[in-house]
């Protein structure tokens, strides 16, 4: 039996941790998750540990923003096929299009309710880490 899929979330907002934990608990399938506060933490995590099945990354973050992080990962052959999904509160079509253009697999605006968040996460896991 394969281990539960591993999801990394890069977001500097502790509230997001609470929401993510709530959503993971309601997924209806096992999944593990870790929250990283910024891109540098993500790089360290990727360099040292288990390869994740999915990375959710926010766009606006301190130290290095999401776009720069995506660009750096896509330039690295170890991570050029890692499922990277932008998960942001931005609704600006320009932001979303730019993220896609530099190599994000998908760009999703954070939903407004737990139910929608759960639905989105389930869909993403089914896509990138089918049970």
């Amino acid at each position, binding site marked *: 039996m394969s281990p539960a899929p591993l999801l990394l979330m890069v977001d500097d907002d502790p*509230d997001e941790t*609470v929401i993510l934990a*709530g959503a993971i608990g309601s997924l209806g399938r096992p999944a593990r998750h870790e929250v990283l506060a910024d891109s540098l933490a993500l790089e360290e995590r990727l360099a040292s540990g288990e390869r994740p099945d999915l990375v959710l990354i926010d766009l606006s973050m301190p130290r290095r923003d999401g776009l720069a992080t995506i660009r750096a990962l896509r330039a690295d052959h170890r991570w050029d096929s890692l499922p990277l999904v932008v998960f942001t*509160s931005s609704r600006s079509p320009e932001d979303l299009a730019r993220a896609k253009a530099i190599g994000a697999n998908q760009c999703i605006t954070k939903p*407004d309710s*737990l139910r929608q*968040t759960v639905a989105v996460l389930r869909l993403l896991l089914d896509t990138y880490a089918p049970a």
Partner: protein
Amino acid sequence: MRRLRASEAMFRSVVDSSPIAKLIVDHGGVIRFANHQAELLFRSTAGSLPGRMVDSLVPAAARARHAGHRAGYHGDSRARQMGSGATFTALRDDGSQVPVEIGLTPTDFAGQPAVLATILDRSDRVRVEQQQAETERRLRELVEGIPHLVWTSLPDGACDFLSQQWVDYTGIPASAQLGDRWLEQVHPDDRAATMAAWRQVVDSGERFAVEYRLRRHDGAYRWFTTRGVPLRDAGGTITRWFGSSTDVDDQKNLESQLHDRSAALERSNRDLENFAFAASHDLREPLRKIRTFASMLAERIPEGDADALDLIGRIDRSGSRMQSLIEGLLGYARLRNTSKNWEAIALNELVAEVVEDLAIPIRECRAEVSVGALGSIRGDRGQLSSLFQNLVANAIKFRAPGRAPRVGISAMRSGGRVLVDCCDDGVGMTPEQAARAPELFARMHDPARYPGTGLGLATARRIAELHGGGLAIASQLGVGTTVTVSLPEAP
């Protein structure tokens, strides 16, 4: 003696037939002979001149001086040719005066030394000279009366005239500025460009206009616009350049103020845009969390606790409303002039799509939407779609209670524009309400019965304005409302 008489007779006939007045005056100043022309010139009766003193033909004021000149001449008789340019005034027998030019030749008369005076009537020349002087005076008055500095230049570009205004303005005599020396009064930073421009037009013979700063007598520099035209002769050759320099300093300053103000306005627009972006992110984010946490809380409320669920529902509805306000405001704030990307749009297609998008609310209230021939316009498809979406949605929303709304959309062309009416038979507004309705957040009806953001008409108006048009509302309470937008017609 006989021969003498014969020669005198011949002399007389020759002199008499001359078209020029002639007098022979002896050394005593007595007129011994006058030809017919002289009698005409001095308006004397025939034969009355000989025997009179020639000084009687000189105005009284100059008579004594004339006698002196005469005595001097007799002491040193040499021919004085005509055309020396000197003009004298002669006194006629009728008391009038006439300008004359006089040539003197020594001769003899009846064996005595005498002087032959040839007298030319110069009235015509004097009149022409006076007229020329008058014309020049008028021209100078004109040149100096206009509020420009006027100058002329020779065909090679060398300045040969500067009007008094130029002299007054610069405080430097014209003589010290002719040729190319006027350039010394041009601001050092503008000098090379001015010279180059001037040289170029002198070579090409085109009209020109150039701007430079010119030094005033007090050292201040003011901006001038200088225009010049070549004056050509009948063969097309340039004979002179004529130009004027106009003080545009105040205008320039206004322009620069206007430019500064536009820049400030642009900055403030950018600030607003940045604000809108910040609002989009920073206001939305906590709102999203409030709604998400409220939904997480709802999951934990034990079944049957209807009061708690009702409270959560209220949080969510308030959040939802705030969210649409933020989205509406953002949509409004992000409206920009997109005229570079305008396209021709068939309005009937666009309105059909809008009506299709509103199919659910239209069906719910059994609204009847009729659309006439609307023609084509030029504009931004997305913005115009939003404009009509707002108009049609309003027409349906503000329907009169208890009756299925009817909405009519029609258009007429007028002066390169299309005027589109969106007409409903809804609740209507008072004239005061109609005037205020397109303001931001204006809400004219009970929000509980007619939910909305108060941004629809403001957005529609802004879009019409971005298309160089506008939005007008005609409404009557209890009868209905017609909103008219003006948009640019597609060519």
